[in-house]
């Protein structure tokens, strides 16, 4: 069983959901970022999404966009992120690592070379924000060749027949974007989802995680009732800046430990 499947299997056995933590790699600096990731892992993160900052983050809200800009200014590059991933992998052989990026930065590095390097390091997969089904094969082919999952994205706007086509090629896990719009914490995310999430989960050959807009234990708990995992990004990045990332991850981990069933 590969690492991602193993993680979801372990979570199911423990009657909990997987906790996926996103951060902008290299924010605010590589050492500070690695320290925050250590706290996230010790507080219960199962999978880490390493966001590669891009100059034009058109799918991101202000928190992640600003963190990305500052990481770039501090000298963050894709090769630097790969070095971080390699160090992290050596310390944490069981934690999932997903590289999260816009296409241009990866394309510039070379998709084949990147996938070969990710395989060597032990990264589990790639999530490309701006790579819908129509363009997927360009990256899916090198991912397949190097045993990497290319994470499929679904949105609230995705019609059912399209969702079915996307899920056919899903690998590792599928990522359901909870909100119409860019990344960032929102109130009341949970009221939008249950039906669509339930439908997608019933169609999916792989576990489904939900993300975008989730920033508190309360929201995470509500979303966790319908998903195999939750993704928290902006709130974690915000906590890195001015807060307590460890306390946040602990709260999130607790909140999805025993997902609420309807009472």
């Amino acid at each position, binding site marked *: 069983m590969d690492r991602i499947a193993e993680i979801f299997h372990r979570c199911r056995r423990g009657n909990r959901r997987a906790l996926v933590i996103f951060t902008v790699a290299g924010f605010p600096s590589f050492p500070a970022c690695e320290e925050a990731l250590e706290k996230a892992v010790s507080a219960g993160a199962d999978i880490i999404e390493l966001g590669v900052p891009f100059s*034009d*983050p058109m799918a991101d809200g202000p928190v992640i966009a600003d963190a990305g800009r500052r990481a770039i200014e501090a000298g963050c590059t894709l090769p630097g992120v790969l070095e971080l991933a390699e160090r992290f992998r050596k310390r944490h052989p069981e934690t999932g690592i997903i590289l999260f990026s816009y296409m241009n930065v990866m394309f510039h590095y070379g998709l084949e070379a990147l996938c070969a390097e990710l395989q060597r390091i032990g990264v589990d997969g790639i999530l490309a924000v701006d790579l*819908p089904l129509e*363009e997927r094969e360009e990256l899916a082919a090198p991912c397949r060749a190097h045993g990497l999952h290319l994470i499929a994205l679904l949105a*609230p706007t*995705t019609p059912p027949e399209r969702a079915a086509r996307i899920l056919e090629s899903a690998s590792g896990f599928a990522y359901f974007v909870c909100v119409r*719009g860019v990344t960032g914490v929102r109130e009341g995310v949970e009221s939008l989802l249950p039906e669509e999430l339930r439908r997608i989960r019933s169609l999916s050959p792989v576990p489904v995680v939900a993300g975008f807009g989730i920033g508190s234990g309360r929201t995470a708990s509500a979303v966790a009732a319908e998903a195999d995992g939750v993704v928290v990004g902006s709130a974690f990045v915000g906590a890195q800046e001015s807060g307590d990332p460890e306390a946040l991850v602990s709260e999130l981990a607790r909140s999805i430990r025993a997902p609420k069933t309807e009472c």
Partner: protein
Amino acid sequence: MKFDRHFGIYGGQYVAETLMPALTELESAYREAASDPAFQREYAGLLRDYVGRETPLYFARRLSEYCRGAKIYLKREDLNHTGAHKINNALGQALLARRMGKKRLIAETGAGMHGVATATVAALFGMECDVYMGAVDVARQAPNVERMHALGARVVSVTDGGATLKDAMNEAIRVWTARCDDTFYVIGTAAGPYPYPGIVRDFQSVIGREARQQILEHEGRLPREVIACVGGGSNAIGIFAGFENDPDVKLSGVEAGGAGIATGRHAASINGGRIGILHGAKTYLLQDENGQVIDTYSVSAGLDYPGVGPEHCFLADCHRAVYHVADDEEAVAAFDLLAHLEGIIPALESSHAVAYAVKCAAEYSPEENIIVNLSGRGDKDMDNIRTYKESRKNGSNC
């Protein structure tokens, strides 16, 4: 004309999944509209009665004499309502938006001409309109900001990144992602994700169709060369479309050389960029050694864009079109020349095309002709020209 997802390896739909259904809806609505005679009739009627088409193809006699070569014809897109070719496309897309039941238009703008055109058609159709504009451009194109306000649009100043056209486009895409159900994104240039480049090309192709017919009426022969400035490339792709099946007609795009390609401060994506992905399309892109998009520079706000329409990338690779560079100094000199010799004040964008035309005209005989797409008028640029000349004067004094 091709209407495919890709132009060779360029173009495509590199957007978040959230936007894909909106692009699919747009594609099918456009395909229906394109083959609906009633839609085409209404569009053509408004182009005639509201925009003021057709625009003249004007023989610039004194400019031609000055250049001692080919007869130079100017396709007078500056004479359109709102003062540039942008209205051709904004009008078409607004009609499409109305057909799709959208009540709100958003647009990005650089020089402000596309913003003004979109605000204009929004007023015409009674639609809400928000225009996203980089803060730098808000400052250097103040008259156009006033025009948009006068037309009832809201101008949103974008301070991200270099605060110019690409940043305005990022913000417009974010806003569209959140509200794609009731909002129509009117993209102003022949870039962005499929189906936009083809839609913009089709709505701008009226320029090329008219120009081809007009030159045959005037001269009884086709031009040797058709010249247009290229930022994203909408006016260029529009005039090129009329001549794409005339293999003897050279198609020449002119990119913004800014302070000079060697300085790195320019906006010449094809001449100075590498293949990359921005705003939903694979394109020649100005980027650094880490794949980060770099801030471009040109005296002309409308050409200040790090990517270029995917069809231009394709035409460049297969050598059907050739892309040249004119720098700030050459563009400003051409601006002066056209104003003094012909009494026409061109937009700084269009001045880049004039600058190249002045050089290439001499390669032809007086029996031959070339066409320059004069994409817009220069009233909006008077402050920029003055500032530019003052800074040059001060610079050379020290």
